[in-house]
């Protein structure tokens, strides 16, 4: 909503331009988009072109003698429309125009020019507000030497408010005036309009067949002269962001902006009857709107009919057949109120959203419906030389009376946390223009119909709070006593992130929405269902991801393409499935881990990632997790495994298939996807302190040779199942195939660590156990000591 300050001052007769309205609105009402002069220029006067002759040396230039009141200036003008006798806008030497243009005396092709004759564009009035290409010719009666901006109504400021949807009451100059009045504690002087009618009776018969039309007032106005509106009206419309057209259109717009009540004018001669019947549209009914488009209507639309056929789409758009044109001499002027929900639906469905439909949607003050008709009528008399038939035809089912609302002071103070007194709040209500009485500590408030947005006690508290100013409230903290903490699972997630960053991995966050085709690329199952949005904005953001690996690989690719060799990243993301979201950890690693620079650096491989994952398992005391080789699409067929716990798959780890990596312009990339909700279930909190072993641990190495195909895990499992709890750890510290080893066999060196809490283990104790282990390895795996 853009409001001219001059217009506001017709309701509040105070120097509002000096009262910092922008700051006031910002802190107490609505966001201010801008607050500035309508035209930002100096030294502009009205000039009278006395002489206008062609420039001796330039065909397209005119040399004019312009009377600017105090003297006559010779000015060169390039506009083709300049003519002798015109009243024009003259920028005097020394004038500053928008855009920083400074006017100086100059010589153009040998002829002196002292000033400039201006177009509206040069004043900063955008071309969307006028059709003019040349200089602006003033049609009002003016005197040479007058201040041009004042004469044209451009000496004004415009406050542009970014209205929230709940404040429909501010969609009028009058509504804004009431808000200013409340904020500044000033009175609003309402206007009254006296319409001088002729003795010819208004013949209209107006009725409704639908409850969606709440009231309808109509007048017949005759003998219209269609012409340009006066400059002051055009200036105010431009300030309000509305393009002036002609006096009939401008007057209806002007009244709408001033009072918030949309009006519509029908060409009375084309109406075809002396009857208006409002009804809902019929199924399959069509209607030609004044933009010459045929609209298909539904039973929710409201149509204005002449008793036979539709002549307007109520509250949304008029009909082509009854449109006011240059030839129009009589109009039926409509001022009505429609069901806001229905207007919203119709205007959205037909994509016909206008200043009118917006006001009907957000609400109009029923008290102003007739007032708007009277105001417009009096303007038609004054600015279109019209006459008015006697009487208004109407029906009105709206309530004009204020709505009662009860609110206690204690509730106000409890909600705001304030310590307002009974009188203080009473004074704020008075400033808002809300009549009220006080009963004990309760206000019995009469909410005027212009504040149709104030419906509940909470709305009323907002009014009191904002007018009083939120800066007056104290800053306290809730008195609710409670214990704040993360849940163990939330702590678990934080610790995973801490561990991984400690291990040198960078956390990333990626988009969950992906293209539908790629979401299965790196999953461990094709049978899971994905979730897609119904109307994606782009195919690239259609389906929710089923593993963070897609997003992680995007990040690896992005960084690798920018010449970063080492990308070690993780994300805690989700598997999004229909009605099931599982939190998962994703890791992707490319490039060496812990670069030793000039010293020997081990290659990054499967086991690097596995080691990082197992660092997490150790941190959370998760045991009995094992790996099962698996073949998955887009993964290396021999370097990929499911991660399992007691037959349950909890994740997968592996190398991206070299062909796939090549397709992605990547090298050796290792990735992991593991369900952290399950990991959390498996994690063991530290329950009790374990006494430290008093006796030293003993380790024993075993070098064995066995078939290459035998899994290390199976050997370790066998060793474990043939010893007792004194075996604390088994690690493979050497692996060898090649020379000196039979083809198809491998040599492994295992280190077994034993500890007995009761005594120092002696050689013979260990020997006994080792003998059993060796026997078992031979029996189960045909593994022999080397």
């Amino acid at each position, binding site marked *: 909503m853009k409001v001219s300050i001059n217009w506001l001052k017709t309701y509040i007769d105070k120097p509002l331009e000096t009262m910092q309205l922008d700051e006031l609105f910002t802190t107490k009402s609505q*966001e201010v988009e801008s607050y500035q002069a309508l035209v930002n220029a100096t030294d502009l006067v009205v000039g009278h072109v006395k002489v206008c002759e062609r420039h001796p040396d330039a065909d397209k230039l005119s040399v004019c003698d312009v009377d600017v009141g105090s003297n006559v200036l010779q000015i060169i003008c390039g506009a083709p429309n300049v003519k002798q006798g015109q009243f024009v806008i003259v920028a005097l030497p020394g004038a500053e125009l928008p855009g920083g243009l400074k006017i100086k005396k100059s010589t153009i092709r040998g002829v002196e020019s002292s000033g400039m004759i201006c177009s509206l564009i040069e004043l900063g009035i955008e071309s969307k507000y006028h059709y003019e290409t040349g200089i602006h010719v003033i049609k009002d009666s003016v005197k040479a030497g007058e201040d041009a901006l004042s004469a044209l109504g451009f000496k004004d400021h415009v406050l542009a408010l970014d209205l929230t949807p709940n404040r429909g009451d501010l969609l009028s100059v009058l509504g804004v005036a009431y808000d200013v009045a409340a904020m500044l504690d000033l009175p609003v002087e309402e206007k009254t309009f006296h319409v001088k009618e002729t003795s010819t009776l208004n013949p209209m018969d107006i009725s409704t067949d639908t409850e969606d039309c709440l009231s309808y007032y109509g007048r017949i106005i005759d003998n219209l002269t269609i012409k340009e509106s006066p400059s002051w009206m055009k200036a105010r419309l431009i300030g309000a962001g509305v393009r002036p057209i002609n006096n009939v259109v401008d007057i209806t717009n002007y009244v709408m902006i001033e009072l918030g009540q949309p009006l519509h004018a029908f060409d009375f001669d084309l109406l075809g009857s002396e009857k208006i019947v409002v009804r809902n549209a019929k199924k399959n009914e069509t209607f030609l709107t004044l933009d010459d488009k045929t609209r298909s209507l539904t039973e929710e639309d409201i149509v204005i009919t002449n008793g036979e056929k539709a002549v307007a789409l109520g509250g949304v758009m008029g009909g082509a057949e009854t449109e006011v044109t240059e030839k129009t001499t009589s109009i039926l002027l409509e001022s009505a109120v429609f069901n806001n929900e229905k207007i919203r639906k119709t205007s959205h469905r037909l994509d016909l959203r206008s200043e009118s439909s917006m006001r009907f949607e957000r609400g109009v003050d029923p008290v102003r419906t007739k007032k708007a008709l009277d105001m417009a009528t009096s303007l038609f008399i004054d600015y279109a030389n019209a006459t008015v038939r006697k009487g208004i035809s109407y029906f009105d089912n709206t309530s004009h009376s204020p709505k009662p609302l009860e609110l206690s002071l204690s509730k106000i103070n409890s909600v705001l946390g304030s310590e307002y007194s009974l009188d203080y709040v009473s004074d704020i209500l008075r400033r808002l223009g809300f009549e009220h009485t006080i009963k004990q500590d309760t206000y019995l408030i009469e909410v005027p119909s212009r504040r149709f947005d104030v419906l509940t006690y909470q709305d009323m508290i907002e009014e009191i709070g904002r007018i009083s100013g*939120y800066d007056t409230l104290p800053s306290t903290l809730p008195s609710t006593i409670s214990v704040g903490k993360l*849940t163990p699972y939330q702590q678990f997630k934080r610790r995973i992130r801490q561990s991984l*960053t400690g291990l040198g991995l960078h956390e990333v966050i*990626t988009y969950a929405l992906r293209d539908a085709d790629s979401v299965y690329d790196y999953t461990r199952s094709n049978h899971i269902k994905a979730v897609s949005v119904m109307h994606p904005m782009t195919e690239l953001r259609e389906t929710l991801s089923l593993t963070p690996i897609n997003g992680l690989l995007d990040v690896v690719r992005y960084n690798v393409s920018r010449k970063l060799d080492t990308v070690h990243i993780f994300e805690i993301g989700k598997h999004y499935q229909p009605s099931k*979201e599982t939190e998962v950890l994703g890791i992707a690693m490319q490039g060496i881990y812990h670069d030793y620079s000039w010293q020997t650096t081990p290659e990054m491989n499967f086991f690097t990632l596995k080691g990082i994952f197992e660092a997490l398992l150790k941190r959370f005391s998760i045991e009995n997790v094992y790996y099962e080789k698996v073949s998955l699409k887009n993964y290396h067929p021999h370097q990929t495994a499911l991660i399992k716990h007691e037959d349950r798959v909890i994740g997968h780890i592996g190398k991206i298939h070299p062909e796939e990596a090549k397709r992605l312009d990547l090298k050796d990339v290792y990735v992991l996807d593991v369900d952290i909700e399950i990991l959390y279930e498996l994690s063991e909190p530290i329950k009790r302190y374990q006494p430290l072993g008093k006796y030293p641990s003993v380790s024993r190495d075993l070098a064995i040779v066995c078939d290459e195909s035998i899994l290390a895990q199976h050997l370790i499992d066998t060793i474990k199942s043939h010893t007792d709890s004194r075996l604390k750890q088994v690690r493979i510290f050497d692996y060898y195939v090649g020379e000196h080893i039979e083809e198809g066999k491998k040599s492994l060196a295992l280190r077994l660590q034993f500890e007995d809490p009761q005594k120092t283990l002696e050689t013979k104790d260990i020997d006994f156990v080792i003998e059993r282990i060796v026997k078992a390895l031979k029996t189960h795996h045909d593994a022999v000591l080397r």
Partner: protein
Amino acid sequence: MNIQETLKQLEDALRKDLEGVKTIEALQDIKAKYLGKKAELSLLMRHMKDLPNNEKPAFGQTINQAKQAFAKTIEAQRNRIEEALLNKKLEKETIDVTMTSPDFSQGTAHLLNQIIDEIEDLFIGMGYLVKEGPEVESDERNFEMLNLPKNHPARDMQDSFYVSEDTLLRTHTSPVQVRTMLEYGGQKPVKIICPGKVYRRDDDDATHSHQFMQIEGLVVDQNTSMSDLKGTLLAIAQTMFGKDRQIRLRPSYFPFTEPSVEVDVTCSKCDGEGCAMCKQTGYIEILGAGMVHDNVLKMSGYDPEIYQGFAFGVGVERLAMLKYGIDDIRHFYINDLRFNKQFK
């Protein structure tokens, strides 16, 4: 020549021999020469039997003292040799301490999560619980129970991604508030914050993202007030932007709160004087908040006659961008590691 003179000569000879001895082997030879069985000192002992009995003890003592002194002198030389050898060995182990060391750098937490952690910690300290919920939500919990019935004009403010007629990607984390209130059954105070991913139909550009992070807060109790909201928001502003920051509440509109406010923080760059960052206003908008609408309380099982509350919602990206002067929201989702690594 008396014995004293003889011993003196021997000692001088020993010292002379020891001069310039660099190896343990050479030292052994000298030791044998002066202290061995055939050494002069040992031979001198043989003269003892020729002496009168009363002189024997003194003579023996003199010889033994000399022996000990010789041994000590030799030992001292041994220590010197060994020290020299060790030094030589260590010298060979000389390294260039300025050479490059292995890269054990730690990773970084994502900046958005760092900010979420920081805000979570602030609120945990004030007695809040952290609540999370699903990102695919019902229309009912995302909109209807937040006082946004179907066809509500304000739904336009949050254009959303529907996955079915009645399910969508949540447009805010408010449905977690609804879930919590329902879980509590309208019976006990609520004091929670809800961080998480949310989605809106925005074309991705420097200032818009179809996916972003939000933290919402909700307190419901019998006397929770707007002043409590103000103090709580001040705590956020000061935690994020410094203890000298002040806040300003401006009237606004959200369907789920009434009164509703936008919250500005005094510009940290110009301290409220006005600069390019705050568009000369001295303030920067950081979040939206308000007192919970009665309809929301009612629908979630809280009796507005007894309970009242406040809620707020803040965009984590916005906080990060303001705090660190980040110019493009897409940085958070592209994860150029040169960006991520800046926030340690």
